[in-house]
């Protein structure tokens, strides 16, 4: 009795502290939480992709691993993926990847860890918002996982959830699943908005003395622009899914026109008067900026990694900043290029073609700027650099393939084919994800105090690069052959039968790509345990985070640093070292260095 009493007493004193550690307001902890969540969904989404690929590569044959526990009963009779299960899989693959893997990584994990360190601030502006941002995102993620276990299975209308397919539950097998999908996104949306507000305010208000805006590294600039995009774009999708939910549950008709039928008989319960294209406008008004939300932070990271490993200032620093803003600004004017064939006025198609072509120009500025950064450098091929260099090429391919879709007549053919699927994966996997890998390798020593293992890291890099290209490049060929996306069985069509070997090849490559990612996780865990101890500045980089010990510990920037120069003073002719930290006042006592 007395023992129990003592136990309860101890529990009572310990519990709040434990809670405070879980519901931490410390930005580093929040970053790690976001990181773990993002990696989890990366693998969950990847697994779904492999199931999708299995069905496409080997249509109608049983999946060779047991997976029935992953879904409700009827979805995989005899181990063969059923059509509605397939639709649910590609829907949740994209949903996981876009909303719960890449966004939390780039709007959650990365800025929470890197941002304060790079601007010399001991903390983020709003610690409580930061904490809420993670827990809301996680709640959204858990709800999304729950959709797999409700009656009727998960949402199966694609990550784009076009109305009326997604607006009227009679049109798909899933009812509660689609509702939960909507709720989950709304909650995630609120979480990310909180995080983005935190991020923007921190950059504006918490920079160290001397760190003027034009002394910020590109990574921080991209966090700023991304934060603004999130603040403007996420409310749109949150409102839009709210309307979609009302159409589904309360019988409103925002996106439901009059006169619909369900398998031949009139659809009851809807007044009609809605417009399916309104959903597409709202979705893509959010959906296209979100593509830039997913690529801009990567561009920032790659800009900095290239400069550090080429030992050269970033070429055209101001042009790089302005092009970031140009991409973000033009990003609001291009959403209609997803709708050329939607029944939208063809004249609007022409204007959206023009704005889409225009956005290629600042993207070109970036690619050529990165190339010029390599020019006359002293390039070291560290792990982060390998991924940054790969990013440069794969992003170029993804950017160039986008021009095909920008051309309205060519889009009439390749729209909704695998050409698009190939393009988007070159941008999001070869772009965002390669940049994320670069960022992991680059800041791993700062975050953990250990170097990420080079040997395993290189194996992961080369396998990933090869399998990535083997997986996604042939998708362009499928698309050129006319292969529609989101079809369960391509062999139904005579004109696609010749392409089936390509599908099989892609599937085998995709499985390799998936398994190669286990190397990254293995490398992270092995390095955490046995990795070489990291010095404060293993890459000899100039930005502020590298003036701190690795890991920085609780006392980071307890003494506020004073900044005297921009972040790219590499290989100054009159300096002894080939870099000058942003905090250093003099170049060997002979005056200050250049400032952009």
């Amino acid at each position: 009795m007395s023992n129990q009493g003592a136990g309860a007493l101890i529990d009572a004193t310990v519990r709040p502290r434990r809670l405070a550690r879980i519901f931490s307001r410390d930005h580093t902890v929040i970053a790690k939480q976001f990181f773990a969540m993002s990696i989890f969904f990366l693998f969950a989404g990847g697994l779904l992709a492999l199931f999708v690929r299995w069905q496409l590569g080997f249509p109608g044959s049983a999946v060779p691993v047991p997976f029935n526990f992953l879904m409700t009963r009827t979805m995989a009779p005899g181990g063969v993926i059923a059509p509605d299960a397939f639709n649910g899989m590609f829907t949740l693959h994209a949903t996981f990847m876009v909303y719960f893997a890449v966004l939390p990584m780039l709007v959650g994990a990365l800025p929470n860890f890197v941002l304060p360190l790079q601007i010399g601030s001991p903390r983020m502006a709003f610690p409580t918002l930061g904490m809420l941002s993670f827990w809301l995102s996680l709640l959204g993620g858990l709800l999304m996982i729950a959709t797999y276990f409700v009656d009727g299975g998960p949402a199966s209308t694609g990550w784009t959830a076009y109305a009326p397919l997604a607006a009227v539950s009679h049109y798909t097998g899933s009812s509660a699943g689609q509702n939960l999908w909507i709720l989950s996104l709304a909650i995630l949306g609120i979480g990310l908005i909180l995080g983005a507000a935190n991020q923007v305010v921190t950059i504006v208000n918490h920079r160290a003395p001397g760190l003027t805006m034009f002394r910020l590294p590109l990574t921080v600039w991209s966090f700023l622009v991304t934060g603004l995009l999130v603040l403007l774009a996420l409310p749109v999708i949150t409102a839009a899914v709210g309307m979609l939910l009302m159409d589904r549950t309360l019988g409103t008709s925002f996106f439901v026109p009059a006169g619909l039928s369900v398998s031949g008989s009139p659809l009851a319960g809807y007044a009609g008067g809605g417009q399916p294209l309104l959903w597409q406008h709202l979705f893509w008004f959010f959906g296209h900026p979100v593509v830039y939300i997913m690529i801009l932070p990567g561009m920032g990271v790659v800009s900095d990694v290239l400069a550090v490993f080429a030992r050269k200032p970033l070429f055209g620093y101001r042009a790089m900043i302005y092009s970031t803003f140009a991409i973000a600004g033009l990003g609001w004017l291009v959403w209609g290029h997803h709708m050329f064939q939607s029944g939208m006025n063809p004249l609007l198609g022409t204007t959206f073609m023009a704005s889409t072509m225009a956005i290629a120009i600042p993207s070109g500025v970036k690619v050529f700027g990165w190339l010029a950064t390599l020019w006359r450098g002293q390039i070291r091929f560290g792990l982060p650099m390998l991924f940054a260099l790969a990013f440069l090429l794969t992003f170029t391919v993804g950017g160039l393939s986008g021009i095909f879709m920008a051309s309205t007549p060519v889009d009439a053919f390749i729209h909704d084919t695998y050409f698009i699927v190939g393009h988007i994966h070159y941008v999001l996997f070869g772009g965002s994800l390669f940049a994320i890998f670069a960022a992991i390798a680059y800041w791993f020593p700062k975050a953990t105090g250990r170097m990420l293992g080079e040997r395993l890291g290189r194996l992961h890099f080369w396998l990933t690069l090869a399998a990535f290209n083997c997986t996604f490049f042939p998708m362009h060929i499928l698309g050129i052959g006319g292969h529609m996306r989101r079809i369960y069985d391509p062999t139904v069509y005579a004109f696609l039968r010749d392409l089936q070997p390509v599908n099989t090849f892609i599937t085998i490559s995709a499985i390799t790509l998936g398994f190669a990612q286990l190397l990254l996780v293995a490398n992270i865990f092995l390095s955490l345990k046995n990795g070489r101890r990291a010095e404060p500045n293993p890459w000899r980089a100039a930005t502020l985070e590298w003036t701190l010990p690795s890991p920085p510990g609780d006392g980071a920037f307890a003494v506020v640093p004073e900044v005297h120069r921009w972040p790219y003073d590499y290989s100054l002719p009159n300096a002894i070292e080939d870099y000058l930290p942003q905090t250093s006042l003099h170049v060997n006592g002979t005056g200050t260095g250049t400032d952009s």
Partner: protein
Amino acid sequence: MRARLSILRSRLHSVGRWAAPPAFAVLLLLAAGTRAGAGPVADSSSHGHRWWLPAASTAVAGRIDSLFILILWITSAFLVLVVALFVAFVIRYRHREGRRAAHVTGNMLLEIVWMAVPAACLIAIAYASNGAWSAMKEEFPRESESLVIIVKPRQFQWDVVYAGADGRFETADDITAINRLDVPAGRNVIVKLMAQDVIHSFFVPQFRMKQDAVPGMTTEMWFNVPAPGTFEIACAELCGLGHYRMQGRLIVHAPAEYDAWYAGRLREKAAESANAR
């Protein structure tokens, strides 16, 4: 020795890295050049090169293909340029002891050039695109001089409606078909799409055309197929669990054959309504 090895290793790595994309470019070209033929397929009109564009079967499709090839050339030129510079820089400027990188921060002239040249290319592409786009979407043939067919897609089939003997739609003598569209060769055909439930998309790969069918509104597309043949109609917009098997056939008849087919359908319809009465 160690330094040597590491140089060798870094060189090998750089070789591997830049070798991949050109290898895939070569793959693309190979695919482009492969004319593996249609194989044992009876119908030649639905098959083009094996891993390449399906045979273009309308004049508009040919126009879209030339645009596609134009863009392919321009983007390939940029890709080759980027890859070439990349390879050259990565090899030439790899780290060597005792050498220092140049402290270059930018170059206004270069930056203007690499904005202006792509801009010029993009304007050219946009200009060329706009002509074809107008031809497809804005310069519709006159309805009075074309064959007008209404297609009403629904989960998961294509309901096809021809105006009957009276030449008007929504009357008792409308001729209907499911998943089958018969049209004459050499004549302008306007397809009016009216979806009955969710969004579908009418896609014929050999015409390089797809047009979404949106419930609540009518969308249109037109084509003119010069020679008879049989084509598959695919649904290109996710429309539910039967999306992948929402397949139709488009049969292009020689004009006289089509007239005979149409007359036959008119007779059938007349007999049907006589029976009903």
